[in-house]
């Protein structure tokens, strides 16, 4: 069944001393970068940045924010919820969430979402307006209260 002849374990393939030293140095460099990344680095240090998945504290009686987009289409002037994911606009929710200051300073950047959407989904109607809405799930003592607060943040209308 095996196409290759079986080679047995009676010999050990050793590494010359210089190769050992080089590999040890390589490992030390990697260790230093990873440790530094966690101690003082930021996400932009990838792949050496801090492994901070779920590292932030959420206050047990605070709120949980999430962002969504609503759009008006050429054939429907009412605001409709639109998918905010890579296959729809080229970006995912977290990427848009991180740019709130940039979007409020320059609402025109929302127009690029409409543009990307028409390139990615040419069969769907074009978006003529896009707005970003923040929803806030309120917590009390570690449990959702059932209250949700909605705030429209920024809006773009096609010229």
């Amino acid at each position, binding site marked *: 069944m095996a196409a290759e002849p079986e080679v047995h374990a009676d010999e050990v393939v050793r590494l010359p001393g210089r190769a050992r030293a080089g590999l040890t140095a390589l490992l030390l460099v990697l260790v230093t970068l990873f440790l530094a990344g966690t101690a003082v680095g930021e996400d932009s240090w990838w792949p050496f940045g801090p492994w901070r998945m779920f590292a932030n504290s959420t206050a047990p009686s605070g709120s949980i924010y999430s962002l969504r987009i609503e759009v008006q289409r050429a054939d429907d002037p009412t605001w409709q919820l639109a998918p905010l994911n890579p296959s729809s606009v080229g970006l*995912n929710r977290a990427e848009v969430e991180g740019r709130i200051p940039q979007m409020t300073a320059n609402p025109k950047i929302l127009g690029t979402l409409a543009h990307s959407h028409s390139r990615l989904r040419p069969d769907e109607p074009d978006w003529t307006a896009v707005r970003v809405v923040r929803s806030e799930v309120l917590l009390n003592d570690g449990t959702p209260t059932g209250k949700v607060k909605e705030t429209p943040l920024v809006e773009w209308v096609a010229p």
Partner: protein
Amino acid sequence: MSWLFAPVPLARVALLRRAVYLFVIVDVLFLHTSGYYHGWADPAWYQPLEMGRLLHLPAATVLLVELTRWGSVLFAVLALTGRFPRITGWAVAIAWIWFQYIAFAYGKVDHDRGDFVVALLVLPLVGAATVSDRRLSEAAGFALRAVQLTAIATYFLSGWAKLRYGGPEWVNSATMLRAVVRRGSWFGEQLLHVPWTLHWFQWVLLTLELLSPLIFVVSERWRRRMIGGWYVFHAMTYAAITIAFWPHLVMLLAFLPLEQYRDRFRAWRSGPTPKDEPPTDEPQGAGVDLGGTAQAAVPPGSRLRFRATQR
């Protein structure tokens, strides 16, 4: 020093490579595709990482994402053939890392993929290795050790990052609750009704993460149990918040004697073959002399070989 180079069978590296390069193909085509769609995002959203500033990497275009994605697939297929393992292996590394870079240079970095970079960089170092090559190799030992160290560093440094960003009060925060509310599954929704489970989970998680390096000082038997424990942990995380750290799950394989599992699987699949059997007319497994036949599960002559693996 010798701990870093403790020899392991070359076959183990060959099998880990198969897992890693198969994963690369599945990953770029099906699992992690946000980078692909960045080809259609406006360059206004591009936020270069340090790596991109250093290497002057441009914003994504459709052409670039297609090249890095299909380049990853093509080089991974070539690497799976086992020919020219260094060139093909490092070609996969460049294509895959670039594709990930594109995914992360738009404002969101996933924190489960840094360790896989190390696997892609060190596995080609070993050079030629086939699944039937049972010679022990120090270079193979180093590569596996580096992957193991990075995989465990993921846990330990995640714990450290929680203390850095969340502070010691992280264990009492509502972080897991937030995760479930944002992307919970049916199972996660059930946990919301018993919030103390999520709270206590945070204590257990941080403790396990900070103690994870102990895996290097326990016995081989316990080491494998701990790896099993981590796999169970990741399965539960997936059930609750539908997040799995896929590349990391592949990295954990570096702790396991893959070539022995392959032997057992093949023996089980093909049944006893004349070549492997001791010269006896009795059908294997039919004997009642349990004391004498219990070790026949391992072909004679292989037993020493199996022992001579990385501690």
